Structures are given as structure tokens and as C-alpha cells.
């Protein structure tokens, strides 16, 4: 896993430049969103598992996966904003559906943590936040994939096109896919660390 991450970073240096070098951002900005999707999918699975057998460990894992997904989503937003400044000429524009809808998606998950902090009873908190998480994650494919593809947009992947199209050189894929795997591996590793911390804390408190 670490090897994959290192490869994803070091191989990218000798690459052809289109979009004036910022094409390299593809290896950094896009995997953020892929990783976020994977993390939220895991959170969805854990939330369903929690409602299924009501073991507190699934709630722990769901919370961790959502937190990691949110971290990567915020990374994606910030990097996208910086990238937009130098290719579209603005930090933020409300004419761009994907940008605004992804910000909205982030707010949904910020609300998840606010909801969690509102309960003192662990079981109640786990149950309600699991239900909220399932609903919240269901909106993600619509906000990030379906609606932006229907609307005109500068972002690649608008107007019904897949994001990989004419403006992406095929050589970029060679680095892109290892980078995606690397970032997902990093996210899973971070989740594992946080989960182990929460488990020890739970044991020590009980």
C-alpha cells in the first residue's frame, strides 16, 4: 500500500504537460473525491450493519468512515478552488453546479457530526445518526454525479459526458489509477488507526 502511494507521487514528475502543468492536479484532486466516495460507501455499509445488529462497534466504524470521508472531501473542495483560480480565473463561482453541490454535500456531513454531538445517550445517538447517515449518503450520487452531468458546466464530466474525455491524455491514466488506489489505501489506514483508538477508549471507559 505504501509502495503504491510512493509510486503515485514519484512517477508523476516525468510527465507531459497539458493544461499548463496543472494537468498534474488530476493525480491529487480527483482521487480526493474517489476516496471520499469510498469512505462514504463504507460508512453507509457500517450504518446499515449497525441498524441490523445494533452493536456499538459498527457505529464507531461508521463515524470514523464519515470523518475520513469529510476530511478528503474538504481536501477536494480546497484543491478544486485553488485549481479553479488559475484555470477558470475565480476562486468560487455560483455558475458552476458541481462546485456548489459538492459544498452542499460537505455541509450534509458536517450536520452529521453536529447531530451526533446533540445526544448524550450512546445508543440513541448511534441509532439516529445511522439513519441520518443512510439518508445523507443516498443524496451523494445525485449531488455529485447525476445533477452536475445534466447541467452545463466547465468542470469535466458535464453535459452527459464522462469526465475522462478529449482533454485528458491517455498517459495520465497510468499514474492516475495508482494514485487513486494509493489515496484509498491511505484513507483505509487512517480509518484503522482511528478505529483502534476508539476501541481502546471504549474498553478503558467501560
Amino acid at each position: 500500500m505504501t509502495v503504491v502511494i510512493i509510486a503515485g507521487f514519484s512517477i508523476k514528475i516525468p510527465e507531459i504537460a497539458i493544461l499548463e502543468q496543472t494537468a498534474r492536479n488530476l493525480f491529487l484532486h480527483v482521487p480526493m473525491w474517489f476516496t471520499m466516495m469510498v469512505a462514504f460507501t463504507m460508512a453507509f455499509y457500517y450504518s446499515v450493519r449497525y441498524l441490523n445488529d445494533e452493536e456499538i462497534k459498527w457505529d464507531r466504524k461508521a463515524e470514523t468512515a464519515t470523518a475520513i470521508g469529510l476530511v478528503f472531501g474538504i481536501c477536494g473542495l480546497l484543491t478544486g478552488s485553488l485549481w479553479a483560480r488559475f484555470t477558470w480565473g475565480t476562486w468560487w463561482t455560483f455558475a458552476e453546479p458541481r462546485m456548489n453541490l459538492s459544498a452542499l454535500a460537505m455541509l450534509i456531513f458536517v450536520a452529521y457530526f453536529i447531530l451526533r454531538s446533540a445526544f448524550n445517550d450512546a445508543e440513541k445517538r448511534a441509532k439516529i445518526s445511522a439513519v441520518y447517515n443512510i439518508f445523507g449518503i443516498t443524496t451523494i450520487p445525485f449531488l455529485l454525479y447525476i445533477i452536475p452531468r445534466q447541467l452545463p458546466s466547465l468542470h469535466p464530466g458535464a453535459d452527459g459526458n464522462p469526465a475522462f474525455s478529449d482533454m485528458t491524455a491517455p498517459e495520465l491514466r497510468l499514474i492516475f489509477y495508482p494514485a487513486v488506489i494509493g489515496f484509498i489505501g491511505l484513507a483505509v489506514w487512517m480509518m484503522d488507526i482511528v478505529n483502534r483508538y476508539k476501541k481502546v477508549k471504549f474498553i478503558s471507559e467501560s
Partner: protein
Amino acid sequence: MSNKFTQEPTRSAVDTLYADRWDGVEGVEQASAFIQFMASNDLIFVVLGVSLIIWFVLLFFMIRVDRKVTSLEETLKENQSTEEA
């Protein structure tokens, strides 16, 4: 800096979002030193900025986890000493 970034500064960059040609990096001569620096060298510093953003956000997250682990260790140590006493 190369001359391809120069333009007539009449339109703002956002107005050109749906035009055939994007004016994102044009007119940087009037902009601040930070923007000029970022637009130099074929925008390679944008890539640097993007990787730094990711690095610092992840670093911030891991430092937070580290702090939590430290406080947990301390409470565990306190619990042990109170049990012994």
C-alpha cells in the same frame, strides 16, 4: 513571465467562463504578487499548492488523532495509579 498571459483587462475572468477561451490566467500583471508568483512557470506552483493543501489537511487530522491518543494514555496511566493506591 511569458506574454501569453497578457490581455486587455476589460472583461472580468468570470464573464468568460462559458466562452470558447478561458481567461483564467490572463491579466495577472495587474494582480497581486501572490497571483503572479502562482501563475509563473506554467502554473506548476498551482500543483505545489494543491499538494500542500492535501498534505496540511491530512497532517492536521493526524495531529488531532495523536493528541487524542496522548490524552487517552494519560487517563489510562492515572487510572492505573489510582488503582494501585
